[in-house]
């Protein structure tokens, strides 16, 4: 019968995980395995996963959303301001809606006006961040203490699990997810089989925005307010998680939610390990930058090899 092939693109992230484990347990010893550190790892991982779920719809289409971090800050700021008038519990739907609205604008720019996604969302990154400063006048906005309850493990856990289920359902088992991956494979083909690719692209950005809004709520509940600097470089961390987890940079049918969870876990371990070893911020940036290039190249290479392998069979 057919031998089950070992697929390099799945092995890579796990190999990397093992490597990180060994390095950090040597450097940090027991501190790495303390309960506190494990909690920190999970705490870092949850927003990355949530941001990553949304981003996956965009990345699987071969596009990118650089505005996730600014969107997070923007929806948190506007959401907190509005929620202070409408009642604190409304912050959850408000942030998600505001995030989705920002995503809608991104989607229109990319799909309708054909601005390349990296340019459009980089510009949005700047626009939204400056709007945050305008809205908050540069100050921290405190929220009602009841919102802090969302930061308890129970509430956070439920939100995370629900978000994961929704994301898996939408991405793996619906027309939307299927066509998103197909747009990444070949957008022209999708047009030729009657898929509304402009709309699919727009929806992907709306979903990415909505998940960024959800991540905003979790951030607010964790720090108890809105800091105009919050979410800075969030999109980078999410991107790292997505690519390190093995999602191909050009998208396509090899994109999956599981890869995001693995990638987010990897990234969080790396982050906590670096913090424990008192790495300087420039060291963290250096490592992240190198990791981004190396992992993307490695996954690309692995994918290519597996295609060549099936061709020769």
């Amino acid at each position: 019968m057919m031998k089950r092939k070992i697929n390099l693109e799945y092995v890579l992230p796990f190999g990397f995980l093992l490597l990180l484990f060994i390095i950090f347990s040597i450097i940090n010893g027991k501190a790495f395995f303390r309960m506190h550190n494990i909690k920190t790892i999970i705490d870092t991982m949850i927003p990355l996963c949530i941001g990553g779920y949304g981003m996956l719809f965009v990345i699987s289409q071969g596009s990118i959303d650089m505005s996730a971090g600014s969107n997070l800050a923007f929806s948190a700021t506007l959401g907190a301001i509005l929620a202070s008038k409408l009642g604190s519990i409304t912050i959850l739907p408000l942030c998600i809606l505001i995030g989705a609205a920002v995503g809608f604008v991104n989607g229109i720019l990319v799909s309708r006006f054909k601005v390349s996604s990296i340019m459009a969302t980089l510009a949005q990154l700047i626009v939204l961040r400056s709007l945050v400063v305008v809205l908050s006048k540069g100050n921290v906005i405190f929220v009602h203490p009841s919102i802090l309850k969302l930061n308890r493990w129970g509430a956070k856990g439920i939100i995370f699990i629900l978000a994961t289920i929704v994301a898996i359902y939408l991405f793996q088992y619906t027309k939307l997810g299927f066509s998103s991956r197909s747009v990444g494979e070949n957008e022209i083909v999708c047009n030729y089989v009657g898929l509304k690719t402009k709309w699919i692209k727009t929806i992907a950005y709306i979903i990415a925005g909505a998940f960024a809004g959800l991540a905003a709520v979790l951030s607010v509940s964790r720090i108890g307010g809105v800091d105009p600097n919050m979410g800075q470089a969030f999109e980078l961390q999410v991107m790292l998680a997505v690519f390190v987890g093995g999602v191909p940079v050009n998208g396509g049918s090899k994109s999956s939610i599981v890869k995001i969870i693995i990638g987010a876990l990897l990234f969080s371990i790396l982050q906590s390990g670096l913090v424990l070893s008192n790495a300087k911020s420039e060291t963290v940036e250096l490592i992240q930058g190198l990791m981004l290039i190396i992992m993307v190249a490695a996954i690309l290479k692995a994918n290519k090899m597996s295609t060549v392998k099936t061709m020769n069979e």
Partner: protein
Amino acid sequence: MKDILFKVQNMNKSFGITRANHNVSMEIKRGEVHGLIGENGSGKSTLISMISGMAERDSGELFLNGKPYEPVSPLTALESHIGTVVQELGLVDGLSVAANIFLGRMDRFKKLNIIDNAALYNEVEEIYKKWNLPRINPRTLAGTLTVEQKKIVELTRALSIDPDILILDEITAALSYNTRKILFDIIDELKAKGKSILIVTHDIEELLDLSDEITILRDGEKVATKRADELTESSLKKLMVGREIEGDYYRADNEDDYKDEVVLKINNISDGENFNEVSIDLHKGEIVGLCGLSDAGIHEVAEAVFGVRPIVSGEITLANGNRKIESASIAMAYGMGYVPKDRDKQALMVSDSIENNVTLSMLDDLKGPLGFISPGKITDVGKRVIKDYKVIAVNEKVPLASLSGGNRQKVNLGRWLLQNKDILILDSPTRGVDVGVKAYIYDIMKQLKKKGVSILLVSDELPEVIGLSDTVYVFKNSKIEKKFRRSEELTEEKIIEVML
């Protein structure tokens, strides 16, 4: 006995599992026109790409004037005085005509490292004059030219090196009558000077007319090289196909035969660019063939009918539900399927699996409650296509890139056949597939017709259009020039006369 100018010896080239060239050998004599012919996918273009330095060979040797010739890039070919006009390359649209002609060889116009444009333009004008070519302003941007003008620029580029061998791949189809005559004069002049020409064309009559010798390829292998005067059209065809063309390759009947019911009404449509005032009625069980030169607009009509190309006037109506086709999703929802011309760019996600490619065209049908699409169903349709349409593949999960052209085309067709569509638009359905698959596809088309399915067949291959259609529309200059009914008297010559 004339001496040999160019020699091809045991050339081999494979793409994945497809053997595009297998031990091909050939000799071109000085001062001769050598014809190269074979069906689509027989390996002609591959051989030419290897000679002109555009593709690497797996193995084999080339000799020019008795010396080994090793083309590593298209520039080597040009430096060795081998000029090529390739079938589907085109020009760099963003540069001027002159820049296109001398791209990569611009250094000769340098004065203190700055290109002297005046000298560049002058040189181009000189080449036009020398070969008596129609003048195309060398300053014009290539992107603004017509298909024929672009071909002339490519020809100018090939002639600009004073070629010892001129390779022409399917060039005549794009040229008007007058330009063809100029080209034939150029060929005569080159011959008189002891230069050689390697010519590839589908037009058998033309090939027999022009060539001194003809090499026939089939499925990547050389069948024979014969003197043109020893060949007739039918003996040549027999060599190409490998057997007598049997009665059942195409349709056996000689009359049009379909129901009166109109299933698709194309009413006076124009897209403001490629086609104008096109009206066609497609009846139940009818095969309508569209043919014309490459810029006549037939492929664009097919795109418009399926709703993927916007039209500026006129309308396309489906009898089913009296729906106007405004988008591809409407066309699909009301029983249409479309096989576009460029299989690997427009129809299939080449690096994705068979099952995903099939699923892509039927997502709405596979949806369960809450829009759930189960992986089981996806695997199912993949398996069915493989089984029902005899696709040769390991399983339904392998990427299409691992399949041969013919098997990819079976997947491409199968995804629509699986859905029992009432109307199929087939644009060049047998492009780049081997003879076996070709016959299989014709068979399927005949069966579909019997079942009452209507087919709009767009094709550059006249025998296919004549052999299968009930009605043939011939396009010229973006318009329907003439409509023919199926009959015994309908021949390629009659159609070509209208096309040109």
